């Protein structure tokens, strides 16, 4: 069984000084091989790029932890007095930085992350004395009160980001991402293969990962991808994915446990808000609109009275709930959860005006806590 090794290594020379290894180069026309390989590679990558562009994708920026860290770092690098947005996907997609900047003169720092409760970023900012600005906290009930942390790793990444990762991120956003449409996690090889129509194993429920939903810019301004708005099939697919996600599952916690968990999230938020307020930070909660099955789900699992209202009352921080403002309602939501790009522009302008009028502007009344009446 032994002895059939094609090349002798240290494994075959016990207890002696190991000699300088020999690395033979196979006899091949390596120059021509390399040239041919590069040509084929260029053709293949070009074809792949063309395929995704034909699908409707444009080069953009990957919503990576590295990009998030670049924005988070701004707070520690002299922009601690800025307006900061922390949120799950809703306010992340719905609040448009250019519109806000046009009205306010300053562009907020966008720290939202899809599927991830704003609570962990609220606590992070509460612990960071360099942050003294204004804070918009986006609340999607399912994510915030359910305590979901799909991309919570961003914070750990930010705190432990190595010099190598920072350089790599810089190279990526300057050399790769703005040039290649295919460079998006939704079009990665394994992701594309996995979502094909494979037969499902008996007893296993079909579940597809959320598809590309938004376009992200260099400073993380993010808005809905126009394919969701304009392609009925793609939009239907997005809705189908949401419906599967919202359907009752075996792993769902019982209602009492869900409420108990929601109260834990609220208590943590209250503590963080009080820390921020003691430092002079203005905290404002924002419940962006949802509609259809998503709104039904939120209302069924996290009724406003036992979640949103309790959060505001316990924290003493004000909040804007879309149901209280006519101008925040009736906007286009192609897949029930997020606004279309145009609607997001409109929503941002309305939201800004409400905030200036009622909360942060010089003429704003000192409203704290209690939910607002319909205006």
């Amino acid at each position: 069984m032994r002895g059939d090794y094609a090349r002798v290594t240290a494994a075959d020379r016990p207890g002696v000084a190991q000699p300088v290894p020999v690395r033979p180069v196979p006899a091949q026309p390596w120059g021509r091989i390399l040239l041919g390989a590069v040509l084929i590679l260029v053709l293949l990558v070009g074809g792949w790029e063309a395929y995704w562009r034909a699908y409707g994708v444009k080069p953009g920026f990957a919503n990576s932890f590295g990009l998030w860290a670049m924005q988070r770092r701004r707070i520690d690098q002299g922009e601690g007095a800025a307006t900061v947005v922390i949120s799950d996907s809703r306010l992340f997609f719905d609040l448009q930085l250019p519109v806000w900047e046009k009205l306010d003169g300053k562009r907020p720092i966008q720290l939202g992350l899809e599927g991830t409760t704003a609570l962990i970023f609220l606590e992070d900012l509460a612990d960071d004395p360099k942050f003294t600005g204004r804070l918009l906290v986006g609340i999607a009930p399912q994510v915030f009160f359910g305590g979901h942390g799909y991309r919570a790793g961003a914070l750990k990444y930010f705190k432990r980001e190595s010099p190598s990762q920072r350089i790599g991120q810089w190279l990526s956003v300057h050399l790769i991402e703005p040039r290649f449409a295919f460079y998006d996690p939704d079009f990665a090889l394994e992701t594309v293969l996995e979502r094909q129509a494979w037969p499902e194993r008996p007893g296993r429920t079909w579940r597809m990962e959320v598809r590309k939903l938004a376009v992200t810019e260099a400073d993380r301004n993010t808005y809905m991808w126009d394919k969701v708005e304009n392609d009925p099939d793609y939009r239907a697919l997005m809705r189908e994915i949401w419906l599967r996600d919202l359907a009752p599952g075996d792993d769902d916690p019982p209602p009492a446990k869900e409420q108990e968990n929601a109260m834990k999230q609220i208590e943590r938020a209250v503590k963080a808000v009080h820390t921020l307020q003691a430092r002079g930070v203005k905290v404002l909660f924002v419940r962006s609109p949802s509609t259809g099955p998503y709104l039904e789900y939120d209302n069924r699992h996290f009724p406003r009275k036992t979640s949103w209202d309790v959060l505001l009352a316990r924290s003493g921080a004000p909040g804007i709930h879309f149901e209280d403002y006519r101008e925040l309602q009736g906007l286009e939501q192609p897949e029930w959860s997020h606004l279309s790009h145009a609607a997001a522009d409109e929503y941002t302008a309305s939201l800004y005006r409400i905030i200036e009028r009622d909360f942060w502007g010089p003429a704003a009344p000192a409203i704290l806590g209690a939910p607002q009446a319909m205006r």
Partner: protein
Amino acid sequence: MVFNSLTFIVFFACVLCMHSLPLPWTTKKINLLIASYLFYAAWNPPFVILLWVSTVIDWYAAQGLVKARRQATRHAWMLLSVIANLGLLGYFKYGQFLLDSFSALMAGIGVAYHPAHYDIVLPVGISFYTFATMSYTLDVYLRRAAPARNLLDYALFVTFFPHLVAGPIMRPTELVPQFAQPRRATGEQLRFGLALMTLGLFNKIVLADSFLSDVAERVYDSDKIPGALDAWAGTLAFSGQIFCDFAGYSTTAIGAALCLGFAMPDNFRFPYAAVGFSDFWRRWHITLSSWLRDYLYIPLGGNRHGAARTYAALMTTMLLGGLWHGANWTFVAWGGLHGLYLAVERVLRARFANYSPGPLVFVLLGLLTYILINLTWVFFRAKTFGKAWTVLKGMVGQNAALRPILPTFSLLSVIAIVGGLVLTHWLMRARTLESVVARTPAAVVCVVWALMAFLIVIAQGSGSAFIYFQF
């Protein structure tokens, strides 16, 4: 920095350019040394100090060994090196583990002991470079090697970036002589080196990270209880992942060194075609297994002092080898299982010394070896014994009537990739990559190279660390 990153591509391009400039050889070596420190500092700059400490201690220990006239003095210099290096390793890698184990022991006898949390970051690759530096002092102590002629050559041996953080664990006699004369890759070496790097990164980014790691994670990192199919798929996926990850790193490192004109040794010889466990350890992580054999097993007596001493040395070596991989008792169990396998094999070889298997039995023995190795991977991958036990129960069909965890695609991926991997190892078990490439038509080599590069590009790797970095 990791090989699978944009930063490394830029770094490596700069190093290649610098190395090809018409500069004096000493200047080129200094450039390589500085580049290697930058390579390491790109993770966490302060940890370069540890690298210096390890380098300086062994440099002076070896100098002391050479100058010492008395055996006791030589012994003292050798012990200084061993204690200093193992001390570094113990403090940074095993401190928390020892405290936790002590607390658990105290709790077992009814004493409540709660030490403060040790919160120390593990310096990447510390297990690799401490072993490399120790081998230098030990080789000088054992009179197998002369000390390096100058500190620059020695420091470059320790720090040379291709092998620094995850091996292959180089011996001084393998690398230091290569620094004596000017070296620059020929055009053929450069191109073949690039091809090797592509192969290594394909293994890591496409096979390990894109397809296999997720399958293992779904089984091992979830609280769901796996049935037989899921437990086996998760474990087989991990067997493929750890090979592609680690062998991928070694191949990339060998390719990077070759691009600069240096030769590094093989670290793997198609290990999933092993027949028996001594064969496995002559094919898997060769530079570690031979290190443990030369500096632990043989000094413990090896097979020169009777059966009992041999088995004791074997088990000690494998248990410590297990612990080398990580500060957790599950790694010790992994090493212990391999020690047990090797001991049983030794008994069987003595009992059936004249037995020569036919081709079918030979393949069946190979499959049995692979299956038993997969059982050890359960302890290697599971974070707790509870999880390992759950997966093992699943593998023997004791977790019945459960909902499937893995989707069909994951199962197909495992069958295709791991099946292909094992088959490839069997086809290659008595060959080298170079001999097969030499016999393959150039057009095929060209297309395969391009396809691997294309798959690397479209896999869009996330730059995740190699598994062995944590060791």
